[in-house]
């Protein structure tokens, strides 16, 4: 860890090296929050949760990392392009309801079916999930973009 950061040569990182506790715990908590956000997202159709909350939680997980480390370090840990996230999310959110034409139904009439998967048993497949992925990506991407923009320009 130390060597990586030293090699990167960020003076700021070196100053922050004292925050060992927060840096260590935040990495652990980061994973927990991220898993929880995925759980919220997946469970959203039956229990509280969904794409919006899931996206926000995923964003806050990364924001936690941003507080413990600085922007460049987080960028190295999670090399995600937020612009791409937003574009992909918006594209999914628009394309999915449109492609439902292929089912011969009006705009935004979601389709679902059930399939039997060997281990898990009966699993529901729902086009709304893909739409919700779009929401998830857009919300997470936009929140992160704003936070990193506002926070990242401090030089």
């Amino acid at each position: 860890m130390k060597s990586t950061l030293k090699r990167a040569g960020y003076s700021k990182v070196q100053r922050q090296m004292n925050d060992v506790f927060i840096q260590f715990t935040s990495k652990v908590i980061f994973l927990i929050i991220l898993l929880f956000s995925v759980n919220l997202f997946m469970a959203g159709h039956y229990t509280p949760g969904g794409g919006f909350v899931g996206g926000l939680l995923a964003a806050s997980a990364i924001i936690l990392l941003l507080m413990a480390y600085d922007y460049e370090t987080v960028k190295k840990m999670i090399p995600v392009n937020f612009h791409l996230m937003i574009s992909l999310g918006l594209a999914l959110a628009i394309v999915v309801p449109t492609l439902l034409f292929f089912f011969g139904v009006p705009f935004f009439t979601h389709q679902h079916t059930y399939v039997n998967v060997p281990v898990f048993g009966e699993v529901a497949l729902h086009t709304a999930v893909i739409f919700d992925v779009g929401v998830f990506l857009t919300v997470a991407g936009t929140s992160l973009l704003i936070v990193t923009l506002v926070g990242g320009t401090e030089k």
Partner: protein
Amino acid sequence: MTLIHFAIFLPVIAAIAIAIIYRYVKDVHLGWFVLPIPAVIVAYLFSLIPSIANNQVFHHTLNLMPRIGLNFDVYIDGLGLLFAILISGIGALVVLYSIGYLSKDEKLGNFYVYLLIFMTAMLGVVLSDNILMLYFFWELTSISSFLLIAFWFTKEKSVYGAQKSMLITFFGGFMMLGGFVILHLITDTFSIREMIANVDLIMASPLTPLAVVLVLLGAFTKSAQFPFYIWLPDAMEAPTPVSAYLHSATMVKAGLYLVARFTPVFAFSELWVWLILVIGLVTLFWASFNAIKQDDLKAILAYSTVSQLGLIMSLLGVGALAVSTGANEQIFTIAVVAAVFHIINHATFKGALFMVAGILDHETGTRSMKKLGGLMTLMPITFTMTLVTALSMAGIPPFNGFLSKELFLEAMFEISNANFSALADWNVLFPILAIVGSIFTFVYSIKLIHGVFFGKRTHDTPKEPHEAPKLLLASPIILSALVIIFGLFPNILSGSIIDPAAMGILGTDTALNTEISHWHGFNNPALWATVAIVVIGTVLYLFRSSWMFIYDYHKEQFTLNHLYDQGLIYSQLGSAKATDGIMSGFLRDYMVYIFGFFVVFGIVTTFYTGLPITFDDFAQVGIQDMALVLIILVSLAIIMMTRSRMVSIIMLGAIGFSMALFFAFFRAPDLALTQLAIETVTTTLFLVCFYHLPKRSKHEESIKFKFTNFIVSVGVGAIVILFGLAAYSNRLFDSISQYHIDNVYDLAAGGNMVNVILVDFRGYDTLMETLVFGIAGIGIYALMKAKVSRKDDDNEEHA
């Protein structure tokens, strides 16, 4: 989703592929990949001709939002098919031509993507029966036209022309939407078919004249009719393939299509007939008169296009009389046939002429008539094509323009035989305007041929002229050949396309069995009119130097262009003044505007309607609610008293988390979760904003400042509480939650109603919110980046 829906969307789908190909394939000209798309569509449309010729119509529905009547109804009759074939057919030729015209160094990806978007939009306009879809595609044609005119966006004139066309056509389109809404109010349908079936409702409605004017504004702006024509000459800054395609053969005919399509709906209205007839003839006369003084080849053709559009428009006006009067039906039917025939002819000869103008520009480096001359021997093929097409435009036999122009003159002569209530004494004006317009058309056609190809060869062309390569010549040769073929054998068109299209305009099922002939006998006035046009036109051309001075009387400050420019400048100045008056740059001022308006609005509403509030079925207030309220109040007090930003933000967070607890107590776990997540993210956002905030100033605000804040905040709080209570006390409608509860599993296969509403029942809301969210993010990005780069610029200036 039928084959025809697919055909309409094929260009847009292909545009995505084209954009990708453009990125990776550099060796082959991109046009070769685009060419098959319109070719496939035109082949498919040709296969529909036999059934359309047998009076069959196709009607396919694709439900988009059936509840509000927004469906993609495709309706193909003769009229729609004719336009669709023109769009895809000319489109294929234009793509072929553009391969030779645009070099590989240009931004071909942009060009072809815009062109394909236009193709879809235009096909959509002429094939949809639903007027909402028609409007959507209509505006899409304006947008793609704007992008194509501004293709060379580094040139100032291109941008000016693009903006002009956009402002004028969008104005018209928006007016047209108003007309459509009125039509919907009257007939309660968005389908043109059903409107025609309910035409008695439209006849009875007092709103109809307004709808007529609004719809016609849309048609007139798009088809460049007087006084809106001024955008078309400036649109000539577009690459020539675009001018040939959009601004002569297809897009500017969308207005004609609209008028033709709505003829069965509005033809009973005298206002409709007279507006179309008079505006059409005035346009014909005025534009052909102005075409003569132009020096730029493309400007001549632009004005000529405007005047020809006016000609067709006036023919449609006469044709509308066929539907309304019933008297002399034969004559008016001929007018419609002439209109349809001339739409085809104009597409062929004007498309070819534009391509020829492009060739001349390409091979000599100039489009100025002054610099061109004596090119006949150097460019024999181009010369022949110009001769054929320009003579067709002038109305000389045996070319196709002669046939339709004679039909036009005939219709104009017969109009004086009809009896109308209004304007009866002015009947004689129509043939005169028509003949004068035709004389000027003859003059500029001859000028075009004579000025460029005859006379002494000038040697001040930027490039040494020589015949164009085969690739450039192919498309105009095909069109010129069509000019001759249609001129010699007009009846191959009449049964297959013209008759079905004319029947579509007239809204009849009876076959017309049109026979177009070259010779009508000596006692036909149209023949003598043609002779007069040729004789007077020749004389005028020969002695042109002695009467050209009359153009000098038309001073610059009296032109419509001047009016437009001044209007633009003054509207910009006015809006700048208005904005400067309101936008002070202080966030607090904007808050006062917004919340102040809300308070005033709330007080006025309360004053007029009253707010009946009952406290009957309120739940008991529990001890936990009290505790939360207490927390919120204490936090509020601290926020107001503290001088530290950090404390304020933490307290604000405390309020937010208390709200989340409220939601949890009221058994709304989804809301509570969302509130918690939002509170976390916004608190962090506040923290990172710290760095950017200025030092908190020590000085006390004035009493007046504080008092305004106090009034506004107390007002907002009171109004919100009152509205909340009133909304709870008065249930005007049954709650729809029961519907959601009942159907959450059956319709959406979900267990969590809130989420099912979000992604399914009201997914459209979520989609739009997601869009807003994304746009806000990108907007903040742009603002922050702009700020940073401006800082950099300042630094450079100082250094």
